[in-house]
């Protein structure tokens, strides 16, 4: 998976920082964004293999990211992370479209395993 591209979108810097560090150790190329707009701009220019996005964000939220990604690149996998309280609603609303859901805090090991699965398919 050397060089495979992962995008992480979360409005809290620490989430992107930690994810980048952890995923880069496994040889991924990682870009992080603090909100949806620049992330979608970037996606229009370039395809990523997996997009990990927060659900609730100001402006463009995780749902919109998901829709845009699926429209642009149906084969790109989207992993949604969200506060625990929002989980049930999110699962219901997005069933079928997302590769995986994780409530925060997300165990990094599990996120990595999920990305692995996403790339194998």
């Amino acid at each position: 998976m050397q060089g495979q591209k992962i995008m992480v979108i979360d409005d809290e810097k620490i989430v992107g920082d930690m994810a980048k560090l952890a995923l880069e150790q496994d040889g991924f190329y990682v870009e992080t964004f603090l909100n949806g707009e620049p992330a979608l701009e970037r996606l229009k220019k370039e395809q990523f293999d997996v997009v990990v996005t927060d659900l609730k964000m100001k402006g463009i939220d995780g749902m919109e990211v998901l829709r845009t990604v699926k429209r642009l690149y149906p084969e790109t996998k989207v992993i949604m992370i969200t506060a625990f309280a929002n989980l049930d609603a999110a699962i219901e609303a997005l069933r079928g479209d997302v590769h995986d859901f994780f409530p925060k805090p997300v165990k990094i090991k599990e996120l990595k395993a999920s990305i692995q699965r996403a790339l194998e398919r």
Partner: protein
Amino acid sequence: MLGRIRSLLGLAKGSGQEAPPFRTVFKNFKEVLENNNRALEIIAELGDKLGGDYLFDINYIKSAYSDLAGAVYGSIQNFDVLTMNRYPQLHEVFSRIDDHIKTLIYDVTPSRGEMVLDYKDITWNMFREVGGKNAALAEMKNYLKLNIPDAFAVTTHAFDAFMAHNGLPEKIEAIRENPDPRSLERLRSEIIRGEIPPDLAVALQGAVERIRETFGRDCFLAVRSSAEEEDGDFSFAGQFETVLNVQARSKAVGEAYKKVLASLFSENSVAYQKMHGYRVGDIKMAVGCLVMVDAAKSGVIYSVAPNGDRDILVINSTWGLGTSVVEGQTDADMYMVKKEVEPLVVGTKYGRKDSMVIMREEGGTVKVRPAEEMVEAGTLAEEEVKALAAQAVQIEKHFRRPQDIEWAIDKSGKAFILQSRPLRIPEVVREGSGRREEYAAPHGVLMENMGVVVQKGVGAGRVFVVRHPGELDRFPKGSVLVAKFDSSNFVRVMPYVSAIITDTGTPTSHMASLCREFRVPTLVNTGAATRLLQHGQEITLKAGDDGAVVYDGVVRELLEYDDRNSLKMEELFEFRKRRYVLRYISVLNLVDPLIDAFTPEGCKTMHDILRFIHEKSVGELVERARYGNDMVKHHMAIKLDLPIPTGIMIVDIGGGLAAGGAPRSATLEQIVSVPLRAIVKGMMHPGVWHADAVSLGVNDFISSMMRMPDITTDGRDYAGYNVAVASGEYVNLSIRFGYHFNMLDCYCSENARNNHVYFRFVGGATDIVKRSRRVELIAAILREYGFNIVAKGDLVIGRLANISKGELEKVLDHLGRLIGYTRQLDAVLNDDSSVERFARNFLEERYTF
């Protein structure tokens, strides 16, 4: 009237309230435990989730903390009821800590803060106000207790005030996009000529005056840059000005201060800032003013060798002040040190030190030529090298990344740390990335599939078996701590421990939360560590999600693997910043209930509050239950029928005795109180209960007659009653045989953290020498079971907490035996050697005299 005022102020004991019946007291006690448990579980959870294995966000911290605050507050309220509001200060302490935590998690930065801060008032989260260098130094001084010169910081608030006072922000704005050399130079000279605003001048003068009061009028300062981001994620090494040996007078300090500020706008520095994405004016400059160390020698330590070898640290050293080493101007000595338990000097190279920088008497510095015999002589003695190395290891471990450290040793031989910042080193990529297990293959496995992992990670070193807290004083840095019991006393050595392995213990104990805080790889409840691991043996503990393995010898590859994979998060500023909240949550300062600081005011964290409440609640319960005699009168007391004449009356406060049986007496079979049953069984252990009383000597008899009514009775009449107040999980046993008074209070449930045992022995009836021998004997025995002991005169108090039900039952059984055994002891303790002999006999279960 006075009483009324006292009670209004909450000063009177119990504030005149009627003491509630013991059943209610016990119920309150259990409620305190419940809330305490909930709180400790949240603390453990937070420690885990913020440990680097999870992606978390601030909302998680907010919600977990809100649950925690609720539980701690609930605990305080139950505690108030239990103690009848005897600790009103606890509320104030709680809200102070709560404020600190909220400031951190809600990112509240005071819009106008202090202009000058003494180092002792700086905490790490003030990074933005005092800059990276000041924050790191204050951290080492206040938290690691390292030797840092006395100092104060001039904050970024002062910077803002200075710039605004001199109309500079507008000028910066004008050159923000295109800072050409000439406008930068103009800006610098305006700063140098600028006026210090009056309130800053007053604050500076106050700080300087305080330094002069302590260090005398001829004191000198080093005035150093400490920019917002400096020494944080970027080092800015050598970018900013440092003015050495400035007279401690406000005018001179003010001039030096302006010089340092101006250096923020030097051409080089602006270029460097630009390289890292900052524009002119993005970064604010705080300044540190440190008392000058009149250095005989000084230099720099790289905590990792420049080639990336993490086992080796390098010390550069020269005569006089360190400026020449820092700037690479002199051919310094170099010491290569292997980082081991006992640092080992593995290489030495003496430089030709033909110049040195020293302090001038009137201020400033001057370069001179050292005496001829010094030029090629080594600057450091081996002991000094080792001492510096040990400090460097500690600093590196604390900041969890390689460090670049400035140090100085003054003319009296005292070593100081002057700065520490992250050291960038090349990543060492090793050939072959085999599985971790393969690395360890050649090493024997000492323990496997045993115990519970409290903190994951890899730790290696020599085993140091701790049998009682006193031995911690001799704990060698970098060793692996092995002990029978887990204990919060271990906090004293936490910064120096490589790993901890215990026979008993739980992942939610006080110690466990300390291990998570300090990231000490820890394995508890192995049942056999003290048996399987030898004192002095080198071992490696690998603790992970899938359990733990202890290998024979140091498996260096495992250590490096761990280093590469789990500690990296520490390099993220955001991560360190978020985790900092744990400083006010999970750190435990109230370790020893016997020290003076064990007060509400001594509580600095939520964990401290919980610890305080638990300890004092047990004390409260013990005190209330002491008046068991009243309960004998008011409750239905039931006589315990045993083959041995203990004369115990049982007061059942709920679930202590099984129903049925004779109306006013109970047999052993009827006791369902777990702790009481264990004790009574111990008393009945074959051979423990000597039927024949050993005769008292005439002297013993006379001295017993001469003694004052002893403290055991508290003036009350206990005669005739031995009382056990019991519930299913609790007992308070007051038992008196002849002149021996034993009191044992115990809570014994499935939840180890709730459990405690408090044992008190007071004796009389013999001469003082024998009495003190008896105390020694009991203390020695209790220590073997892991008790914390206080012994004074003929009183011994032992406490033990957080112990599993099974273990506790065993301990109680032995305490039962001890009560029986010591009944006849006095008469046979004829010399000092007998103490050790009888203690050994007892521990080896030989109960005949």
